[in-house]
């Protein structure tokens, strides 16, 4: 239990629930936001260690959120992983160019996804005991 804080931004409540469970089991604290506007508010309030961002969001595209995050001094250094249903072709490079550290297409492989999270948080990868699949 390292207690690092991750902000999940996604408008799909059931996905939030499923992913929150998985990440909590790996020792992270989870906060979430379901639209582009609250995303920034929550980020400023919670100052998470990592942001997981969907691209198709109500009230604004994920790319807009990403750009906004990178222009705000207090948020710019927070690593962002994009998790989207969109085609990686085109979107992946666009996300990386906009400052994201990784791009995953939904559904991501649990193991790869956790590795990326740990990498982004600067943690050494230790295979979670929860990962049996």
């Amino acid at each position, binding site marked *: 239990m390292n207690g690092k804080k991750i902000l999940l931004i996604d408008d799909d409540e059931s996905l939030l629930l499923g992913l929150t469970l998985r990440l909590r089991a790996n020792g992270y604290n989870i906060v979430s936001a379901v639209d582009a506007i609250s995303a920034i508010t929550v980020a400023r309030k919670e100052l998470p260690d990592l942001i997981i961002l969907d691209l198709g969001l109500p009230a604004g595209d994920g790319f807009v959120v990403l750009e906004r995050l990178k222009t705000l001094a207090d948020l710019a250094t927070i690593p962002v992983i994009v998790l989207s*249903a969109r*085609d990686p072709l085109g979107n992946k490079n666009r996300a990386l160019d906009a400052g994201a550290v990784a791009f995953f297409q*939904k559904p991501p492989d649990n193991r790869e996804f956790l590795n990326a999270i740990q990498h982004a948080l600067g943690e050494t990868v230790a295979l979670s005991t*929860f990962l049996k699949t």
Partner: protein
Amino acid sequence: MNSPTFGSTPAIDYLPVSVASHPSYSTLSEEAVDPSLSPELLADLLDASAWIEILTTYGLTMNVAVSLTDCQGIGLGVCNNPQAVWSLLRAAVPLLGCPFCIPKSLPCTAVVDALRTGKVAMVRDQAGLTHVAVPLSIGKQPLGAIIAGQVFDRYPEALSLRRVAKNLDIPSQMLWEVARKQRPVSRISLQSSGDLLRVLGHAFVQQRYAAILEAHLAETNRNFRLLVEGVRDCALFTIDTAGRVTSWNVGAQRLLGYPETDVVGHHFSRIYTKEDIYNRLPEAQLRKASLEGHAENEGWRIQGVGSKFWGNTSITAFRKVAGTVDGFTVIVQDVTERRKLAIDLEGAREERVRLQDKFLSHVSHELRTPLTAIYFFTTNLLDGLVGDLTLEQSAHLKLALANINQLKEMVSDLLDITRIETHKLTVEQQHASPAMLIVEAVSTCQTNAASKSARLTCDIAPNLPYVWADPARVRQILINLIDNGIKFTPKNGTITTRGHAYTQDDNFVVLSVADTGCGISTENQERVFERLTQVIEGEKPSRSGLGLGLFISRDLVSRHGGRIWLESQPGQGSIFYFTLPIFSLAKLCAHVFTAPNLALRSVTLIAIEMTVVEHVVQADLLSEIKRILERCIRPGQDILLPSMSDTQPMLTFFIIACTDVSGFEVMASRIRRELEKFDNSSSLLLTITPTTLLVEPVPPSEKQIGEITRELDGLIQQHLSRNEKHT
């Protein structure tokens, strides 16, 4: 008694030069000289009154009787020579059969012979009389003959005289009186004069023929003119070689808007747009028509009032004398409607494809969100995050997960399909181990196989060379083929994946997936690679999947430069094969090993090694480093080799540079600087080492390049194996 005038005549073609070059003759098309001449024309050609002069003159000169006959030898009524015995004979002989043949034979053997051989034929009949037949033909069509002869070719013998008289039923005394006065003609002079007559006759026929045709042509022209003038639906006009309008039909007036009087004598380019005129399109079209006989072009055309229409312009050259263009006929048709229709159709097709792609891509996208939630919940349950599971619950969830993964593949397939259609499907070829790919693909399919009680086995040839392929895509192909095998194989079947050298072409390896399933009938074998095909074999259609896998696999294999095919017999199982190109350093380096590059006389192999201390290597990290290195090399002179080893945590990149040690120093310091800038946490332990090969001077031969690459390959392998020992 050979008269000099009648000396031997050279053999002639049946078209004398003067005729062949006659202007009206050369304008005749193939059809006009068709041997199926009308009876009227034939009769006209052999019109006795036209021939009378030439025949009479000849008869008098040669002192023979002359007759014009048809192909059968039937006299056409002109034979006249008052001095000859003929006048006597003529009174007695009806105009039936050859007038010279005694007794009468039909057809006359001389005429038949002459027409068959095309030469002068001579015959001596039973009465001892000689006559020659001169063939007349037009083209290859026989017309008839000129027969020349005399009743007696020497002083009459009593016997033959009596025989002739008897045959002709005239008193022999009378015949004798006439014959006695006649100057004899030798057979030799008859023969040679026949040759002359042949030339004369021939020329005469041709001349007459040409004259008749000219008259006929004039008639046709008149008819054609009437026809052209009557055409109202398209513009039809003629122009001279300079492009000036010489005639203008009603259709032209209607379509192009100018009355004849306004346009004749003016250049025809006024029907083209300003841009076309500026680009000299009318001239180009005329030039093309002059050279090739015809030119066609479609585009906007201008009407007199300035409005435009989409017209098809067809220009045909016509020639009066062979070789020289005399002018052009121009046909302009209004095809605006047709074009609009074609554009609409094409637009509709594009729209359909676009909508279909949009739909597929949308479906693929929309399915992913719920699929992700299902995936998370299933794996959460399966990993015991929500509580302990019974063995049965766990088994069921594993099956659910296998199905989720299958669904995930289908959703990806949908996206791949839209990429194939829009040519966006990409393969990033690199240095890859086919053995490794087979092992990975087979282990991925293990769960699915277990659920269907199928056995997966591998058979990989030792020392299988590296391939030049996109690992993710090759895995995708293999997984697709193996999953198909599992799908169509009954319980306890075996699916064998093989990797071998390809005996037909040593630039390739061949991978194959064999199953023990229902097999595919010959007529279905071609179809399985088509889009949305799922061939139903046997009684029960074992159904699942979208039928896209093989279609995508075929596209992926062909993008690798390989080939995919299958061998199968119903009930015997199927084997799917595909080839992948073997990685070739020589091919990869070919574009930098050029004469100017090799003139530097040294090639340097640069090994860049990184030990990543803090974290497991991410695919993204690898591609980022690759991007940085790509920026440090000089395109066209250096090559960054694809990753040659999967050894972790040691990363090794190789650069082949056409440079010497000092050039290497510059490059190495740049690489170091760039990589340190990227990795400011200094978690990369970086070493850069060069190995320089000295190269023979130019010009590079295939053999020499082969040697360099072999040497480089050796160095690379040496380097890698040393690293492996370290780790």
